């Protein structure tokens, strides 16, 4: 499973992008569960966020959903944080 996260906006207006390929990872099933929940709670179009709030684009195996601070589900927060931290 390929999980991509793009973060845009924010006070600095600086984009960040990272992705994780779960194939061969020992914790792959954990990533899959998290990714599926995050995508299920996502939206098909970018939601209106708040000024300077981050906007997120989450793509899992080609399917893209959108979310924005401060309204993220717990799974979305966790997935975004992990991909941006551990991804390349």
């Amino acid at each position: 499973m390929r999980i991509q996260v793009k973060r845009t906006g924010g006070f600095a207006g600086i984009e960040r992008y990272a992705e994780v390929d779960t194939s061969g990872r020992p914790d792959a099933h954990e990533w899959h569960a998290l990714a599926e929940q995050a995508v299920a709670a996502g939206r098909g179009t970018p939601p209106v966020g708040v000024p300077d709030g981050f906007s997120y684009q989450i793509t899992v195996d080609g399917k893209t959903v959108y979310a924005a601070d401060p309204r993220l589900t717990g799974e979305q927060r966790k997935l975004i944080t992990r991909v941006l931290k551990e991804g390349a």
Partner: protein
Amino acid sequence: MTTNGGFQPVFCTIVPPHVLDKLAQHEDSALADPARRTLERDAYERTHRRLTTVLGASAAAPPAGAAADQPHRTVYDAGHTQDLPGEKVRAEGSEPGQDATVNRAYAGLGATFDLYLKAYGRDSIDGGGLPLDATVHFGENYDNAFWNGEQMVFGDGDNEIFLDFTIPVDVIGHELTHGVTQYTANLTYFGQPGALNESLSDVFGSLIKQYSLGQTAAEADWLIGAGLLAPGVSGSALRSMKAPGTAYDDDVLGKDPQPATMDDYVKTGRDNGGVHLNSGIPNHAFYLAATALGGNAWERAGQIWYDVLTGGELPTQASFADFAKLTAAAAKARFQEGEELQAVLKAWEQVGVRTA
């Protein structure tokens, strides 16, 4: 003005809406009732946010017995979670504690309140004594600060690129000015009106810093976010109103992409249509007008910009040219046909925005 006793921001809906829908229909009321309440709360928040956008926000009531023309500050600590507002750690009038972040947030709210009250006679963000709430230590290594429509939220930064977002007082002023804009001109956060919304936050954020330091236009650094970049980053700040496009040039961050004039206007769908990019143009116009006039920038240039922001004639979809024309009209209304009007007209001409 309506008061509803203060709304409690609840943005921490962890359960996705479709799960709540399902739960709310459950036969067991122990499951259904909380889900229904959460959905109602969620719907309330959404409707409230939309009404706030359309109508401007109504004021939360200042605490009973609180003096007018005094700030009503409360700082909360999210303890590195993303749950708002968090634990209350400092109330108005209490002594500074051990946490420098809490103290900086408290002082920054005060500095913002001071400029608006003393320079423009505005009692808080809404002009009606709105309590100023801030949450610090939001999230883990969270690289941002924002006004969520009702309160301030500050991250600690990741310490590799960004330090603590409470460090620059202009960042605090920038975010709270988004609140002022929300209650006044309510500029749409996209394209040119969005870039104006961003620019007004930079203008008043910088003026709050200048006012608190007692700096004239000539003495000010005109930087936004000075002190925010971690020591290893090549850059002085996030934006420069004096010289947009020169704030940083770094291996990781890249180069400051802001244009200073319409010749370099950026057409993009990203960043809400480049709101943090093209804000460099009106930012530079303000810098040019303020430095041409000299003295304290909040007094004449700042007054003209404030008059446009709060005057009721600025459309929510205003273009740069709409805004520029209104600054000329405001300069004339307040200072007649003097050097203020000339400084404003020349500033817009220099950045390539038409005023006629």
